[in-house]
Each structure stands twice: as C-alpha cells, then as structure tokens.
C-alpha cells in the first residue's frame, strides 16, 4: 500500500462518513481508492467538479454532523482556501489532506514542503487557524488520520494533514488498526432537521457591531486551548547537542540519517521534529535554545518553518537554514556537510572558554 492508499484506509477506519475530491497529482490514488472502498462500506464518495466544490461538499456533510474529508495537492488546496475559511468561521470540523507538490503556480508534481506558510497561517481570509500535522512516515500518516478526525470534532475546526509527494507514493509496512476515539462533545449544533427542537443555524456572518469581534475572541480562546494541549514534537540527542537540526515530514527522515552519521563522526548533533506544525512546538524549541548551540533548519522549500523556529528562539541562538525547493530533495550528505560546517571539528582546541562555534555559512 502506498501512503496515499494507506491514509485513505486509515480515514475509513477513523469513521470518515464521506469523501469528496477532485483529481490532482500526486494524490490520485486517494480518490481512486475511496471510489471503491467508500461504497463498499455504505459511505459516500463523490468526485466533484472542482476543489471549490469538494471543500463545500465537505462543508455540507460536516454541517449535518458527519465526518467528512477531502484531499488534494498544492494548487487544489489553494482553491479550497475559501471553503476552509468558511469552515473556520462556522466552526465546522473537517479533515483536509494536502499531498504537497512544487509551486508556485502549476509548479511541478515533485514532492515539496512549499505550503507550510499556507497551512500554518490559516491559508484563507480572516482571523483563524487550522491544526496541521506534518507526518514523516506512512505509519505516522496513518496514525494521524484518526487523531485528525477526533481533533476536528473536539475543537470544531479544520485539521490539515500536510504530506508530500514522497509520503503519498512511498510504500512502507504499516499497522492499520482502529483506534479508540477520544471522548467527544455531542454535535448538538448539527443540522439534522429541527424536529421537536428550536432551529439550528450554522453561520459565519456576524453583522451587528461587536458581534464578530466577540466571535473572533471565542475562536482565539479555542485556538489557545489547542496550543496548550495538542503540541506533538519529537526530540533526539538534544541534551548535549552543539547543533540541533529542526525538520518535519520527509525532510526530517533525511535529517535523522544525517544526524546519526554526524554522531558516528563524533559531532554532538541532535534533532527536533515538530509533528504538529500548528500548534508549533515553540516551547520545546525555545527551551532547547537556552543552551549554547546552533540550530539548522532543513526544509524542502526556500525557508518557511525556519521563521517559526526563529520566533521560538527569539534571538537566543543562531539559526541557519538549508533547503531545496521545487522538488529538490536534500541528501544525507548535503545535510551532514552543513552540520560539519557549523560545528567545531573535534581535533581543534578552542582557546577561549565558552567559544562559540564558528559559522561558516
């Protein structure tokens, strides 16, 4: 099973009632898989006429209390931003998978991490957030689907799973199992027909003076709860590290190889891998920057997450970026080379006490 098919099956296991999608490479295995499997399960599959329609079909199904998802790749996700903003305003749960490709524009169909800004800053118009996962293996991609549906329902917001062309196409052995759901609040807001009760209204328009401001503060309070409770982050050999490499998704897997090699060569290197990109592991990274060390951020882009790392570190430590955009995938050797450039070779003695590592970039 490739990553795309695996995440589709994981969504079915997670209780996805309806899938709506429009073909775009490199995620075409998902609608193809869903078109077969969803009817088998007695659930809904619709191939929409556009990504705009797909996200609004998700909006409709979600407004009635059903678990709904759509998937696409970068250009299609841009089209969905209108709907994602409305989902945020109307506080409707939704799961959106972005199997990222190179951009801007039509770009190419190679893997990329160029949509980090779009995903973590909300993406559409208005004052809102989405929860964003950046899985780095097919297993993690599968595991985050169940959590994505739960978090979407719990916080009534959109959860974006930010994969890329490599993860979508990659085949890895995985364990697919049904996970117990979180304890979730009842969907008493859902539109089910006002039988024996007052009408329910799902809306994002707040015209009276002060009404939208109040609504925005309500959303803000919710987002703060997410930031407090839902950060997921992995760390490796951070305690004694002179250099910490920060990366997410597929880039983090390559970084893992480079850091292991660096350790073998006697370089005190470690890594931090944000699993949730929003909420961002600001505290974990800030804490790591309390020690004297350098941070190297590696991305498959011209540098996007590096801004969040800098915000977290707030000038306490130097932050260096290395990235490959447009479908370029950094190699272990390239990253190892950067690590070496940024650290003091073991055979050189430092004269000054607490000498800072040399920055050669």
């Amino acid at each position, binding site marked *: 099973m490739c990553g795309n098919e695996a995440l589709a099956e994981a969504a079915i296991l997670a209780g996805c*009632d*309806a899938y*709506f999608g429009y073909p775009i490479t490199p995620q075409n295995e998902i609608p193809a898989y869903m078109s077969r499997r969803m009817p088998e399960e007695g659930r*809904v599959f*619709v191939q*929409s*006429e*556009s990504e*705009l*329609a*797909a996200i*609004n*079909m*998700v*909006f*409709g*199904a*979600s*407004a*009635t209390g*059903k678990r*709904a998802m759509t998937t696409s790749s970068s250009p299609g996700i841009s089209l969905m931003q*209108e*709907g994602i903003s*409305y989902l945020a305003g*109307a506080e409707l749960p939704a799961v959106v998978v972005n199997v990222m490709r190179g951009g801007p524009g039509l770009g190419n169909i190679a893997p990329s991490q160029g949509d980090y800004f779009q995903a973590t800053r909300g993406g559409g118009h208005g004052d809102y957030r989405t929860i964003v996962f950046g899985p780095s293996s097919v297993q993690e991609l599968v595991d985050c689907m169940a959590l994505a549906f739960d978090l979407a329902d719990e916080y009534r917001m959109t959860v974006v799973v930010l994969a890329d062309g490599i993860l979508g196409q990659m085949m890895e052995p995985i364990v697919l199992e049904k996970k117990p759901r979180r304890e979730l609040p009842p969907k008493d807001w859902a*539109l*089910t*027909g*006002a*039988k*024996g009760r007052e*009408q*329910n*209204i*799902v*809306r*994002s*328009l707040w015209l009276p003076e002060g009404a939208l401001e109040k609504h925005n503060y309500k959303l803000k309070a919710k987002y703060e709860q997410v930031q407090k409770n839902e950060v997921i982050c992995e760390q490796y050999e951070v305690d004694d590290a002179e250099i910490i490499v920060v990366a997410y998704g597929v880039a983090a897997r390559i970084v893992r190889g480079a850091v292991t090699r660096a350790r073998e060569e006697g370089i005190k290197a470690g890594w931090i891998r944000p699993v949730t990109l929003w909420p961002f592991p600001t505290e974990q990274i800030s804490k790591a920057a309390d020690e004297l060390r350098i941070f190297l951020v590696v991305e498959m882009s011209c540098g996007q997450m590096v801004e969040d790392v800098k915000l977290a570190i707030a000038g306490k430590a130097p932050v260096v970026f290395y990235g490959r955009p447009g479908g370029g995938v950094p190699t272990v050797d390239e990253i190892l080379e950067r690590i070496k450039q940024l650290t003091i070779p073991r055979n050189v003695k430092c004269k000054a006490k607490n000498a800072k590592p040399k920055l050669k970039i």
Partner: protein
Amino acid sequence: MKTVFMRTPTLKDCPTHYCPGCGHGIAHRLIAETIDELGIRGRTIGIAPVGCAVLAYNYLDIDMVEVAHGRPPAVATGMKRTNPDKIIFSYQGDGDLAAIGTAEIIHAAHRGEQITVIFINNAVFGMTGGQMAPTTLLEQVTATTPRGRQTTSEGYPLQVSELLALLPGAIYVERCSLHNPTHVRKAKKAIKHAFELQVSGAQGLSLVEVLSPCPVYWRMTPVKAMEWIEKEMTKVFPLGRLKG
C-alpha cells in the same frame, strides 16, 4: 369570527430587513407554506445564499446554513448524499447561481443531485448596491452599467433555467414570477411541486426560477417594479415549465 388567512408556522413572526416592495418576503412565505403543508419541517435543511437573503434563517424557522457565494449546490450535495432522508433546498439569487456559482449549479444538476433549488432572479445584485447581474436586461441601467447593459461589452442576459433544462439530471425546471397574485399562486404550486419531487425520492434536481422585484435598485416604485417584470422581464425570461 372565522380565520381565513394566517401566518404559516414555519414563517417566523417578525419584521424582515427587506426593502419595501422586495420579493424575498413573498418567496420566503411560499417556501414556509410548502414546508408546513408537506409536514417536512423536522427533516428540512435550508441553505441561505450570500446576498440579501443571507439572513433567511431569521425568517424561516428551520435548520439552516449560510455558505460561500455560489456554493450552495455543492453544500447541498454534501448534505443530501450523507442524509438521503432529509429534504435539502438552496435559496439562491442571480449573482449566486448565475454568476459565481455557475459551475456548482450546472454540475449538481448534471449529477442529478436530489435537491431543490429556489432561484430568485431580480436582474441585479441587490445587497452590494445594484450592480449588473448575468440576468440584467439589455439597456438596463445598474451601478456597473451606467449607460445601460450593452451586448458589445456585457453580453446578453443569461437564461440559466433554459441551460439547466437541457441536462438529464435536472428533472423539473420551471420559471415563475411574483408580479401579481395569480403568478404568486402559480409560483407556490411550482415550489410545492419541486419539494414534492424530492420528498417522493425522484432521481434528479428540481429548480424553480422566480422573477422577483427589486424596486430600490431598479429605481422604481414597487408597483412600477411589478409592471416592469410583466412587461420587460418576462420577454427575456418567459414564464412556464421548461422541463418535467
């Protein structure tokens, strides 16, 4: 004393925000009456458009959602596919349905979605200040056609219902008008029929286009607006059943 006419329960007992002489109030009432007569209030979900009728949920006492401009047929698709037992209708203006949402309505009809669409055609964008709509008549002066709509620069009035009637997935398409009591009653009959088709499980989309007055942006008195529908609008948008 015998009551011969009263507010239908699904229409809330409150003043509307609509301008004097606007047709939305009549159209709302016809929908509310239909819902009550068919006894489907407890399983009906309405979709309000972007436009003057965005606040329709303030007047119709049913579960309602307000969605992005032009997207109601896609939202309705998501609702109906996951809730085949519910009655789903969208209420859309000519900007919503005939301009920005053309793709959504064409494809919902083309897929034969079992939904009902009430399409209010008042030949103008009302809420944003009376700009040209795709359904604006030739020579009609609007905020964005100050010299009157010209074919050379703005094209012809778009007859969406005729387009939709061509699609096999659209099973019922009728154009009605609200310009006098006779036609209001005809519109009621059409709206009720469209809902009945969905209730009966008929395979396809039902749409009723309603020619509706916008006296403020037509720069007319309400009475003149009604006359204008009869004399001018029905020439370009002939009334009657187009399909089904």
